[in-house]
């Protein structure tokens, strides 16, 4: 049984009990508990099932390396799966449920897989599910999806908010253990601006648990004094509950702050992602203890020795009454001693080593009367859902049982691996440390910044220093090195604190226990607990030729679970090395990638959620649209009215009404979103002649001209009306989506290619509210507003003029995208709404109605006007669209000219623009392809064209469309077939694309 001890833990507050529930059962813990320690205090050792075999799984660790104990946490809008109990602080009312079992945690049908384990070896999925092909979708995938998978997907919307925080410093120290504290203090004393992150809710790391004497006092006292010194300094920012998640180029690092995970519902954001720019980063991220690979090492009750110690010392929780300690190093003796001091029984310490003499901790343990068996190992652990005992064997042998010992917990230690993740994220190299059998940062090959100098320095255990005195000295030296890089100096007399040294015997590398374990034992020796990868699987992978560590990882799934192999990677690759008779460094490691430990996706999104998920651009008239039935469609980041619905009419009906009204009376369009670029300078005309396919330099002031813009590959990218304002100023209208990109396109050419041309460009799109006043009554409406002459004589088609209309300062462009009499009127945006209201008022008697983008599309399609994005798709040149008239023959050059002369662009077989008219008056499906005779090499029907725009025209009472058709303009009157996705064949006649007022009489009145 695991239970709460009478002696309180270092971190728990017995005066503050907290109630929580696990799988519906109410339990009790204390303030300061993690969910892990609270579960263990309630004898809840079994917390989940493994991924593949559904083996019972218990808590193994006490920190973020925990592979097993993941739970569904919270409810409704605060439900989250895959939460680690070891990193979850307990709070009142916490609800958790175990994962990956069916129907219950105690009785799991899927556990039958463990009896089939002989048939589920490494690579099983790859071998089994290849054939027959159709089985994958209909049989294998549904079954696997049902049986596998960890937590449940949340169903409710996340109730919380999240944010980012941009932070800057000279030195970022990650890790608030003694190494991090000391490094921060040293750096701060040199005057550096320091940020210190600690992932847990307390300072000091594990040193206070492991004990020792620093500067003549206990570790706790050192921690307190160092904290006090740091807090008194203005140049230090210290934060608990922030995990250093990743290190990136240029000293960029991410810190994941968990603000209210332990106080759900508190005001403010739940998580804050710190986006730090640090000149230098110190990783004081400590080390993680490794499991030992012996049979049954996954049975609940087998735990890392350091975790057993943490639960006793920090939380006052014992894992069992009788704990067998199994180790290859001195460090695990601390656990035996701690247990003994807590009044618990340690029947035996099994030490795989054979030491010549008893020193230090070994001596202490023996003095406490603990039995120590040198050269011994665990042959197998007994028990199912809980450890009941161990079979002891000689480490040197094959596992013959020498003795059985009853126990209810096993504390194992296979040595320690420095947490090198952050060091490695940005390219820091590792070296193999034979003494400690681990990979440590190779400090001669750090991650390098733009200046070629290293910007990450490891400190303490994270750099492979394990003795307390070494840790403190290393941390001090790391900080000193870092501040030197920053041209800062330590004040005289500042030195590292001194810790007492323990006598220690060297550890021995043990990758399999016993070293000659039989195949049967190897099949029960787990490497990766979460993904169920065993020693036998890695050996099989090697045998089947997966000798690269990256391949073996993917084949076996070792280290690919949510813990990313924090416990399993080193053991796995040592096993791989062993199977190939290679040494470990030559096998190498897999790649460490951020984040160190999973972070919430919402923290990455930050504030971008709900109404601020994306910026929505609004015109000065949008409030009116909102209030008048506008149905919107996205156009870039704008939302433009698609149609204005009245009463109970359908969207289609509204569009038809708007078209007819505009053709017969008066339509008003919010055209504010159209791009407006001012181009000015002595070379502006020359510049625009290069930008547009047609001639803009010859345009007279006061006149407008429609222009086409191509990219350097000749493809049409934008179009619009250009107005010449004065001798050296033009105003270029772009499409709505093109305002920013065409502005950037112009700037790019001006800054990189024609930097010596005297041209300035300014984007004034949003300065104006622009309203198109369209229809036979348009002039009457403007005359009612009064103030300027808008007659044909005063303001002809394709001219513009400044003036005053109804008291508003306006610029009127007499241009038409509808084929009707049309004025586009620009007013300053701050007066846009008042101007619109004035227009609506004078238009009331004239049949004024607003119209949306769909009406605009139909009006222009009736006139055969192209639309960028409909008739063009990045592969269309103006010549395809019959726009040869807008391409200047006189100009020596323009962007796209050379490309348009290439053989493929001049190929007579290019599909060309035509009008399409269905033979029965119906509307062609959008995007439909016209089929041709025969099939292609893939057995698909050949095509000869496609629909680019298609609408029902209320003006003509039938469907009209435009399309690109092979040799289209030469095939007038021919009928082509467009199969629809509805199974019907649509037949359409090839016609002229101008369906309405081909002579342009209506717009020119």
């Amino acid at each position, binding site marked *: 049984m695991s239970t709460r001890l009478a002696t309180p833990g270092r971190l728990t507050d017995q005066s503050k009990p907290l109630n929580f529930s696990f799988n519906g059962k109410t339990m009790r813990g204390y303030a300061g508990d993690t969910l892990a320690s609270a579960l263990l205090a309630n004898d809840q050792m079994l917390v989940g099932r493994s991924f593949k075999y559904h083996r019972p799984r218990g808590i193994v660790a006490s920190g973020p390396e925990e592979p097993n104990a993941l739970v569904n946490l919270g409810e409704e809008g605060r439900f989250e799966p895959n939460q680690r109990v070891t990193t979850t602080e307990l709070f009142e009312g916490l609800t958790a449920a175990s994962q990956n079992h069916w129907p219950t945690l105690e009785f799991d049908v899927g556990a039958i897989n463990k009896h089939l384990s002989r048939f589920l070896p490494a690579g099983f999925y790859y071998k089994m599910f290849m054939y027959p092909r159709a089985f994958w979708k209909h049989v294998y995938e549904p079954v696997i999806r049902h049986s596998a998978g960890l937590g449940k997907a949340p169903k409710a919307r996340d109730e919380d908010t999240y944010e980012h925080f*941009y932070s*800057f410093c000279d030195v970022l120290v990650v890790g608030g253990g003694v190494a991090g504290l000391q490094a921060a203090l040293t750096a701060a004393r040199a005057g550096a601006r320091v940020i210190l992150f600690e992932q847990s809710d307390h300072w000091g790391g594990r040193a206070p648990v492991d004990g020792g004497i620093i500067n003549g006092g206990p570790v706790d006292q050192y921690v307190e004094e160092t904290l006090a010194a740091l807090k008194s300094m203005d140049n230090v920012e210290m934060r608990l509950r922030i995990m250093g998640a990743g290190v990136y180029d240029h000293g960029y690092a991410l810190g994941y702050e968990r603000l209210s995970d332990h106080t759900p519902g*508190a005001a403010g954001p739940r998580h804050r992602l710190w986006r730090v*720019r640090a000149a230098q980063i110190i990783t004081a991220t400590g080390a993680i203890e490794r499991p030992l690979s012996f049979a049954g090492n996954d049975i609940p009750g087998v735990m890392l020795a350091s975790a057993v110690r943490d639960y006793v010392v920090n939380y006052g929780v014992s894992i069992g009454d009788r704990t067998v300690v199994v180790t290859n190093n001195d460090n695990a003796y601390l656990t035996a001693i701690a247990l003994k001091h807590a009044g618990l029984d340690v029947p035996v310490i099994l030490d795989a080593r054979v030491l010549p003499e008893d020193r230090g901790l070994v001596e202490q343990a023996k003095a406490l009367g603990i039995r120590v068996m040198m050269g011994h190992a665990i042959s197998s652990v007994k028990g199912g859902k809980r450890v009941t005992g161990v079979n002891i064997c000689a480490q040197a042998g094959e596992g013959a049982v020498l003795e059985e010992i009853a126990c209810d917990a096993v504390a194992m230690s296979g040595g320690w691996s420095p947490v090198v993740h952050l060091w490695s994220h940005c390219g820091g190299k590792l070296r193999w440390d034979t003494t400690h059998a681990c990979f440590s940062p190779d400090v001669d090959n750090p991650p390098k910044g733009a200046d070629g100098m290293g910007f990450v320095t490891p400190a303490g255990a994270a750099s492979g220093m394990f003795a307390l005195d070494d840790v403190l000295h290393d941390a001090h030296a790391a900080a000193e090195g870092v501040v030197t890089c920053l041209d800062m100096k330590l004040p005289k007399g500042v030195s590292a604190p001194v810790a007492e040294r323990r006598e220690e015997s060297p550890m021995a590398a043990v990758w399999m226990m016993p070293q000659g374990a039989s195949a049967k034992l190897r099949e029960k020796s787990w490497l990766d607990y979460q993904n169920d990868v065993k020693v036998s699987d890695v050996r099989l992978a090697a045998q089947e030729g997966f000798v690269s560590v990256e391949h073996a990882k993917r084949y076996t799934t070792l280290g690919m679970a949510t813990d990313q192999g924090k416990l399993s990677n080193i053991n796995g690759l040592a096993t791989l090395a062993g199977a190939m008779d290679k040494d470990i460094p030559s096998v190498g490691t897999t790649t460490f990638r951020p984040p160190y430990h999973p972070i919430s996706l919402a923290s990455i999104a930050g504030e971008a959620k709900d109404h*601020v998920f994306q*910026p929505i*651009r609004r015109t000065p008239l949008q409030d009116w649209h909102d209030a008048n039935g506008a149905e919107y469609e996205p156009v870039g980041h704008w939302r433009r009215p698609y149609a204005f619905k009245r009463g109970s009419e359908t969207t289609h009906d509204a569009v038809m009404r708007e078209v007819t009204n505009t053709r017969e009376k008066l339509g008003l369009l919010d055209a504010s979103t159209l791009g407006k670029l*001012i181009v000015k300078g002595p070379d502006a005309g020359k510049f625009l002649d290069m930008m547009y396919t047609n001639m803009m330099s010859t345009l007279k002031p006061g006149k407008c001209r429609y222009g086409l813009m191509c990219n350097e590959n000749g493809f049409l990218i934008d179009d619009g009306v250009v107005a010449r304002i004065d001798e050296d100023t033009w105003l270029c209208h772009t499409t709505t989506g093109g305002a920013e990109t065409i502005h950037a396109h112009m700037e790019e050419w001006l800054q990189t290619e024609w930097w010596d041309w005297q041209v300035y460009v300014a984007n004034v799109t949003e300065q104006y509210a622009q309203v198109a006043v369209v229809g036979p009554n348009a002039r009457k409406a403007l005359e009612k507003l009064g103030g300027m002459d808008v007659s044909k004589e005063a303001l002809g088609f394709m001219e513009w003029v400044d003036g005053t209309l109804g008291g508003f300062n306006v610029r009127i462009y007499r241009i038409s995208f509808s084929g009707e009499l049309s004025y586009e009127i620009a007013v*300053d945006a701050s007066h846009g709404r008042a101007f619109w209201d004035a227009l609506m008022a004078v238009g009331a008697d004239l049949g004024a109605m607003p119209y949306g983008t769909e009406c605009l599309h139909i009006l222009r399609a009736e006139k055969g006007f192209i639309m960028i994005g409909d008739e063009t798709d990045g592969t269309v040149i103006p010549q395809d669209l019959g726009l040869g008239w807008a391409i200047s023959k006189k100009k020596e050059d323009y962007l796209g000219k050379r490309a348009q002369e290439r053989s493929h662009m001049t190929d007579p077989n290019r599909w060309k623009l035509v009008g399409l008219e269905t033979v029965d008056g119906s509307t062609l499906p959008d995007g439909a392809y016209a089929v041709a005779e025969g099939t292609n090499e893939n057995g698909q029907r050949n095509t000869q064209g496609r629909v680019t725009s298609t609408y029902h025209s209320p003006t003509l009472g039938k469907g009209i469309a435009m399309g690109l058709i092979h040799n289209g303009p030469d095939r007038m009157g021919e009928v082509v077939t467009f199969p629809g996705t509805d199974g019907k064949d649509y037949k359409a006649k090839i016609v002229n694309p101008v369906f309405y007022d081909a002579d342009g009489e209506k717009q020119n009145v």
Partner: protein
Amino acid sequence: MSEPMTALKGASDTSGIATVTELGPRGMITLRGDLTAKPVVKAAVAAGGVTLPERGHCATEGKGGIAWMSPDELLILCDYATVSDRIADLHSKLAKHHALAVNVSDARAVFQVTGPYAREVIAKLAPVDMHPDQFNGTMFRRTRIAQVPAAFWMPDGDTVQIICFRSVAQYVFDVLNMAAQDGSEVGVF
């Protein structure tokens, strides 16, 4: 002519850790030209009513001011009512020089964030070091607020004034208030 109407009609929110208010209308002129040319500088100084700020800074006085936008661009601030006069003046002064002066007053929205946590609100949205030792005085920064372009300066230690495009005024107002939400103090500055 009607009364000029800003994008959010002067909306304000005081519910969070800082007060967010829409200001304006404010006169703004984009001036592009050779900032080392005396006539350009003289015209700019006359229009803004302040001396030319150095790179990365702004100079403000009353409703007038000049902000450094790029090596060939200034933003001239002035009373909204005087914009057209000032542009006309710029045009006449710079008639013989290659320069561009356009009215952008209505293309922009102006916000103010005030309170002891104003710096933190900005640091949640803009990749700028808002530490008082690092961003202070007449500094002016062209950057972004969350997902949109913006520029800001600090008239005093507890106040940030932000310029953004008019079309995203609602977004910027909302996102500033999100960053200023109750209980979101970081406590670093």
